[in-house]
């Protein structure tokens, strides 16, 4: 895609430990268009946060990008030096972390932290700094009086808003968010998501949004990736995944949630737990938990296949799957 803002190609990340090298992210490729809202969902340990850190070049040892490229505005970020990256952070892309309480410095006021970020990139007068800081704070719906507040004086929702304000100091083209709403109550969460969407429309930045919350992704993202055990299981426009999930894991995730409206139905969840990434299987990683697995799934590794506009990593959509389906319907018609 020539017009993509971000192009991730074959990104592979390992945690190098004494016991084993654990491949937390394997051969992930996707791109993000300018102004797009991409949701990345998966459960704990699926590699979603590691991948986000790998893209933002924030991995610290023993985590390491061992293969692949992250092309952002024509440059491969994996190969950039610390100095070049420092120049791009906040200005061209920014990252909003899960816990604002840990990401903000407890010893400094919000205003002082904004000032640090601003002055790291531009020579600005005190008046300009105050003006821009007040501007972004009001953008996210916080009174500028809170520039003098310390993180502990703000509620959880306000701290996350302040983090987002900080991420917008230079109006970057890409904002990456790692579960920014998961520590919040539902009302604060809804309010923050609506704010992010509104600002995105207004300012035109793209968002990569990592979460385990299917509800949030469904309502706010344009396109989504479902990750399982370090790989992309399914990638498609969000509405399509929710209306016609193709991968059995996507199906299982969607069916795992009760609803507040509509008929009550019994949920099944997905029995079992994710595989140990230190000893990956030769076959499909979801096979042990898959309700519709075929015999070949245990020792054939599925690729990502194009299925009706979605990319799906599942052997059901190959010849083997068609054969199995044909033989099954054959059996059914014999009865």
């Amino acid at each position, binding site marked *: 895609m020539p017009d993509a803002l971000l192009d991730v190609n074959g990104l592979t990340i390992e945690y190098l430990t004494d016991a084993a090298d654990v491949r937390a992210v394997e051969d992930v490729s996707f791109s993000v268009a300018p102004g797009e809202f991409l949701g990345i969902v998966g*459960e*704990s340990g699926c590699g979603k946060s590691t991948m986000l850190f790998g893209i933002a070049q924030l991995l610290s040892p023993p985590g390491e990008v061992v293969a692949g490229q992250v092309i952002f505005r024509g440059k491969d970020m994996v190969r950039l030096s610390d100095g070049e990256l420092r120049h791009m952070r906040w200005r061209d892309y920014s990252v909003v972390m899960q816990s604002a309480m840990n990401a903000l410095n407890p010893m400094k006021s919000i205003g002082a932290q904004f000032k640090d970020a601003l002055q790291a990139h531009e020579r600005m007068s005190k008046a300009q700094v105050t003006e821009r800081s007040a501007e972004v704070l009001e953008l996210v*719906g916080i009174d500028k009086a809170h520039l003098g507040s310390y993180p502990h004086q703000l*509620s*959880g*929702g*306000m701290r996350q808003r302040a983090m987002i304000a900080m991420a917008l100091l230079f109006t970057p083209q890409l904002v990456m968010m790692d579960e920014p709403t998961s520590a*919040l*109550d*539902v*009302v*604060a*969460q*809804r*309010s923050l998501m*609506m704010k992010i969407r509104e600002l995105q429309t207004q300012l035109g930045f793209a968002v990569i949004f990592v979460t*385990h*919350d*299917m*509800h949030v992704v469904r*309502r706010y993202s344009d396109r989504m990736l479902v990750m399982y055990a370090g790989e992309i299981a399914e990638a498609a426009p969000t509405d399509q995944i929710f209306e016609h999930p193709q991968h059995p894991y996507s199906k*299982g*995730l969607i069916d*795992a*949630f*009760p*609803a*507040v*409206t509509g008929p*009550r139905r*019994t*949920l*099944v*969840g*997905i*029995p079992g*737990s994710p595989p140990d990434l230190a000893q990956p299987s030769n076959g499909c990683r979801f096979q042990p938990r898959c309700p519709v697995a075929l015999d070949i799934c245990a020792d054939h590794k599925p690729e990502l296949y194009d299925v009706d506009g979605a990319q799906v990593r599942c052997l059901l959509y190959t010849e083997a799957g068609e054969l199995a389906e044909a033989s099954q319907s054959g059996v059914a018609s014999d009865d």
Partner: protein
Amino acid sequence: MTDQPEPTSAAGAEPQPLLQATALTKHFRLGGMFAKQTLHAVDNVDLEIREREIVALVGESGSGKSTIARLLARIYTPTSGDIYYRGRPLSRLRSRKDMNWYRGEVPMVFQDPFSAFNPVHRISHGLMRNLALHRHDLHGAERRREAERVSESVGLSTRLLSRFPHEMSGGERQRVGFAQALAMRPKLILADEPVSMLDVSIRAGILNLMVELRDREDVSLLYITHDLASARYVADRVVVMYAGQIAESGPTETVLSDPKHPYTRLLLSAVVDPRDADPEFAADTGEPPRVINPGEGCRFRWRCPFAVEICDTVTPLPRTIGTSEVACHLAGEPAMQVADEA
């Protein structure tokens, strides 16, 4: 309702609730000598849990829902108000033996299955210990068999009994929590956010387990959660809390399909599709409730789009509207219906 001196199980009346709290209140003192403040964690709460009933206690952080669980579990003692278990006031349970009995009848399952178990003991240890302390009717071999029975009834394979907590997944550990509770032959399990730390794919299993325990083992559950959808999935009755007080309670479907308190409406509008959300609440940013020296008046009035003068001065008491109890001056009034029809 609150001035009823002691619940009685007179003939012809409703069956005695398993557990009943009247005017339950818990305050915490904050600050030093000169700046005394009082945090009203729970204020004047009436709550009933009947036999074989799942009651969901729903609220956001700071609503007092976990404080209620701890009051009912006797981890905290109430500032005022009473709790009756099968008609017996808990304040009279003083001896170690009585407390032990109560904790066996009303055990608690905790939110974090990663820190609730002693890491140096095998899973069987906690189960066997509960059996030794609470089930004097059983001998050695019988205890072992009972440990296996309760594990199986929560869906845990008995070979997991010899594992250590770190060798198990979060979902398995939460099942161990329920097995430990079940080993004591409980009547009521206090479950404080038992699924909120689990992965989404395994939450359904624990929710189903709670329903099974009610249907198969005749246990009642108090399910504490911030998630209305899971409350709807398991609970017979829902109690919605705001700032230490009950805002609304009633049968699950009634409360969720026809919410009468503005706070219940706000909560629901935050979890449905934004296109279907109540427009009255679109601007609410979810600021936490004020529970330090709250004073008189409705505690939700700061956020309520319908608030009128009386809300500033008079704390609303629960009123019966249909099958629900609603603590709102305006609930059921035409002023609140307008938005519905618009």
